[in-house]
C-alpha cells in the first residue's frame, strides 16, 4: 500500500537528513519494502529482483534531490522504472498492404479471449475498419455461440464450422477475403502452455492464417505463473502484444509487468469490464501506480468525475472549505459515493491514508445507517445540528432504527470533520497528504515541501509551513 510504503520509507530515510546522498544501507532497507510491495502485487520474483537491482543502481549514493524528500525521490525512481518496463514503445497497429490484417488471440482458459475478440472487433470498427470474426474455439461448449451473440451485438460477422480449429481458421480467412473484409480476428480455445498437443495445434492455426498480430490475453489477477505461461506462448507463437483483462477488479496487476518483461512486447489493450465497450488502449503510468499499491489515483479522480455532478461537487467543496458544509451536503455526497463501488475498494485507491484506516473492515450497512439517521432529521436539524437536544436525538434514533449513541457519534464525527476541513487548501490536510504529490500538482495550490524550502506562492504568502 502506498501510504505504508511512503511512511515506511520516511521512517528509514529521515536518517538521511543533513546528508547529501542516499546511503546504501537506507536504500537497501527501502528496497526490501519495495520487494514486498511488488510480490504482494504478484510481480514475478525474478522480474521483481531485476527491477530492484535497476532501482538500486540509480539510488545508491545518488545525490539527494533538492525539491523532494528522500522517500519521494526513491518512489520517483521506482515509478519511473516500473513505467519504463511497462511502457516503452506503444503498439501502433499498422495494417497490411494486402488485406486482411489478421489478428490471432491466444491464452489460458478463462483469460477472456472470446470477449476480447468481440471488443477488438468493435474497436476496429471504430477505427473505420471492416472486421470479421473467426470462432476457432471448438473445445469449450457454446464458445462459438457466445462469439456469434457478441458479434451480432457489435455488428461484426462470425465464421465457424464444427470441423477443427486449423480448418476453421483457414476457411474463415478465405471467407473474409471473399467478403472483402480488411481485418480478421481469430479467437482460439484456451490452452495450457504445457499441453504439447494443444500448443502444437495453435502453432498450426497460426501457420494457417499467418497473423500480422498475435496477442497474448492474460488475466490481471494472474500470479507468479504468468511468466512461465507467457514465455511458452511466446516461444510457440512469437507474440506481438499483450491484452490484459479484468482490469476492473482490484488485483494489483503485477502479472502485466512480468509478462511484459519476459515477452518484451507492448501491452496493447486493457479490457476493463464485461460490456463490449469496456476496452481501452493501455497507459503504463497508471498501471505502475496500481502495481506499487499507490492507489490508482487518476482512476479515482475519473471515477469521481464520472459519477459526481461537477457543479454540485464544486459547490460542496466551497462549502466544506468555508465551514458551511451541512449534513444535507454530506448525505448527497454519501449517495454519490455509493454509486462508485464498495468503500473498501475506494479506500484502496487513496494514497495518504493511515494504515488502520485502509485495513479496517468496512461494514457497508453502516453507511446505510448513517443515511437513515440523516434522513430522520428535519431540514432545520440538518442545517443546524446545534438544535439537536436529547429528545430530538432519541426521536431520530427511533426513526432510523439506530441508537442514540450512534446518532451522537455521527454528529460528533461530523463536527470534527467540519472543523478539520474548514479553510483548508485542497488535499493539504489529510494524513500524510502534505508530503504527497497530489498536493503538489493540484493547480493553484501552494506547494508544501519538506525540508523547509521556500516555494514562493503566487500570492506571496511567505514560506511553506
Amino acid at each position, binding site marked *: 500500500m502506498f501510504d505504508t510504503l511512503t511512511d515506511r520509507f520516511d521512517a528509514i530515510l529521515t536518517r538521511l537528513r543533513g546528508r547529501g546522498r542516499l546511503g546504501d544501507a537506507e536504500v537497501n532497507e527501502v528496497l526490501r519494502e519495495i520487494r514486498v510491495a511488488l510480490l504482494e*502485487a504478484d510481480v*514475478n*520474483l*525474478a522480474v521483481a*529482483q531485476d527491477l530492484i537491482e535497476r532501482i538500486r543502481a540509480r539510488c545508491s549514493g545518488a545525490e539527494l534531490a533538492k525539491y523532494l524528500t528522500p522517500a*519521494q525521490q526513491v518512489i520517483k525512481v521506482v515509478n519511473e522504472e516500473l*513505467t*519504463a518496463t511497462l511502457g516503452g*514503445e*506503444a503498439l501502433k497497429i499498422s495494417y497490411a498492404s494486402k488485406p486482411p490484417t489478421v489478428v490471432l488471440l491466444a491464452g*489460458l*482458459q*478463462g483469460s477472456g479471449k472470446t470477449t476480447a475478440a468481440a471488443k477488438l472487433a468493435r474497436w476496429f470498427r471504430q477505427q473505420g475498419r471492416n472486421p470479421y470474426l473467426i470462432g476457432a474455439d471448438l473445445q469449450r*461448449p*457454446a*464458445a462459438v455461440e*457466445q462469439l*456469434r*451473440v457478441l458479434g451480432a451485438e457489435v455488428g461484426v460477422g462470425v465464421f465457424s464450422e464444427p470441423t477443427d480449429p486449423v480448418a476453421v481458421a483457414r476457411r474463415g480467412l478465405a471467407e473474409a477475403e471473399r467478403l472483402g473484409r480488411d481485418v480478421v480476428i481469430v479467437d482460439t480455445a484456451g490452452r*495450457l502452455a504445457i499441453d504439447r498437443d494443444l500448443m502444437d495445434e495453435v502453432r498450426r492455426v497460426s501457420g494457417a492464417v499467418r497473423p500480422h498480430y498475435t496477442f497474448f490475453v492474460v*488475466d490481471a*489477477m*494472474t*500470479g*507468479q505463473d504468468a511468466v512461465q505461461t507467457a514465455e511458452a506462448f511466446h516461444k510457440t507463437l512469437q507474440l506481438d502484444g499483450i491484452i490484459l483483462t*479484468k482490469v476492473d*477488479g*482490484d488485483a*494489483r496487476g503485477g502479472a502485466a509487468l512480468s509478462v511484459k*518483461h519476459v*515477452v*518484451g512486447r507492448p501491452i496493447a489493450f486493457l479490457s476493463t469490464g464485461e460490456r463490449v465497450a469496456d476496452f481501452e*488502449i493501455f*497507459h503504463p*503510468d497508471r498501471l505502475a501506480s496500481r502495481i506499487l499499491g499507490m492507489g490508482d489515483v*487518476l482512476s*479515482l*479522480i475519473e471515477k*469521481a*468525475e464520472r459519477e459526481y455532478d*461537477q457543479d454540485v*461537487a464544486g459547490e460542496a467543496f466551497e462549502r466544506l472549505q468555508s465551514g458551511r458544509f451541512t449534513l444535507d451536503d*454530506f448525505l448527497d455526497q454519501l449517495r454519490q*459515493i455509493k454509486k462508485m463501488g*464498495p*468503500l473498501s475498494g475506494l*479506500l484502496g485507491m487513496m494514497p495518504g491514508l493511515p494504515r488502520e*484506516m485502509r485495513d479496517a473492515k468496512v461494514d457497508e450497512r453502516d453507511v446505510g445507517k448513517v443515511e437513515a439517521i440523516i434522513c430522520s432529521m428535519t431540514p432545520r436539524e440538518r442545517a443546524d445540528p446545534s438544535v439537536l437536544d436529547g429528545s430530538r436525538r432519541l426521536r431520530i434514533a427511533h426513526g432510523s432504527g439506530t441508537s442514540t449513541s450512534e446518532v451522537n457519534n*455521527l454528529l460528533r*464525527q*461530523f463536527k470534527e*470533520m467540519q472543523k478539520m*476541513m474548514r479553510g483548508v487548501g*485542497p*488535499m493539504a490536510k489529510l494524513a500524510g497528504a502534505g508530503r*504527497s504529490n497530489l498536493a503538489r*500538482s*493540484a493547480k*493553484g*495550490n501552494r506547494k508544501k515541501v519538506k525540508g523547509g524550502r521556500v516555494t514562493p506562492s503566487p500570492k506571496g504568502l511567505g514560506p511553506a509551513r
Partner: protein
Amino acid sequence: MTLVITLVVVAVLLLSVGGVVLSNRSRGRRSTPAVSSAPRPPTSTAPPTSKAPPAAAPRPAPDAATPPVPAEAPSAPPEAAFEAPGIGAPEEEAGRPILKDRLGRARGLLAGYLDQVRGRKGVDEATFEELEEALILADVGITTTNRILADLRAKVRAGSISSADPSALLQALQADLVSMFDGDDGSLAFGEADGPTVWLFVGVNGVGKTTTIGKLALREAQAGRTVMLAAGDTFRAAAGEQLETWAERAGARIVKGADGADPSSVIFDAVQSAASRGAGLVLADTAGRLHTKVNLMDELRKVRRVAERPPGQLTEVLLVLDATTGQNGVVQARQFTEAVGVTGIVLTKLDGTAKGGVVLAIRSELGLPIKLVGVGEGVADLVAFDPAEFVEALFG
C-alpha cells in the same frame, strides 16, 4: 470505524474533485474530464502533459527521456521447470486419476530448487532463501511464506530439526503445510430433510464454474443421484447453452432462463422443479462477477437468499478459484465469504504449471476448506482435495 472512513472518503473525494473543479474555474476554464489537470503519481515535477481522454486516439508515446528497457529474460528458474515431464504412466485406480500424476505433468518448479537444497550440506540462510523463493513462486504470498518460514527457523534454532540435514527441513516444511489443512471437512454436505439439496457456485469471471458443475453433475449422477442444473448465469452470452451441453453429457435436467432474466428466479424454478420431480441435488450456476462490483454482489446476496428457501436445502456455497490466481485470490475469498458465506473452495486448472499456493493464505486467514480440485477440461477431471497429495505435488 466505518463512519470515520465514510467521512474521510467523502472528504477526499470532494477535495480531489471539487478542488480540481474550482481550480479549473478560477482559471476561467470549463471543467473537462480532468486528465490533464488531475494529480499524477509522483514521477516528475514537470507539469503534466495534456492528453486526450482514453478510448479516442492512442495516447502520445510515453516520455521519450526514459530510455527503453531492453527486454531480457529474468535470471531463469532451473530448466527443470520447463521440461515436459516423463513421470511415468499415470496410475489410475478404478478410473480415478491420482492428483499427483495429473499434476506430475507440470513438473514442480519447486523440484528444481529443492533438488538444490537437498544437495547442500547443512541448513543455512541460503537454504531458507531458496525455500522462500519456492513458496513465493507457488503463489503462497510473502506474508504467509514469512510466517511459515519463521516457524521453521524457530524449530531449527530450538534444535528440533537437525541443522545438518536439509531433507529433514524439507520434510518438516511439508508437514507444516499439510497440517495447515488439519481439521478440514472436504466432503460436500447434503441436506437431511426432504427436498433437494442445493449447491451454489460463485466466483469471478473465467474460473471454471460452469465446467465444474458439469463434471460434478456426472459424478453425482454416477453415484446414483438425480441431478438438476440451474443455469443461473443469465448475463453471459450463451452461458445457458454451455451448461446445457454439460447437462446432456451428464444426463441431468436443466432449467434455463431467458437472457437477462433474474438469476434468482431461474434458481428458484430449478429448485421447485427438482422438488416436484424428486431430484435430490440442484447444482446452481451463477454469472462470474468481480467482487468489486457492488450491484453484482448485491445480486448474489439475493440469489443466495432465494436458493436457501424451502423446499431447497442450501448446504454448500462453493467459491470456484482459478489456480493461476495470485494474491487477489485472498481478496476474492474474503469478499465472497462476506457477501454469501462461502462454505468451501473448488480449486481449478491445477493441471497447469500454476501451483495454487494462494489457498494456503486463504486457509490461514479464512479457514475455508478446499472441497474439490479441477485437473482438466474433461468430464472426469475432478478430484477430491487431499492435502498430502497437494503439498507433495507442490514439491514435485
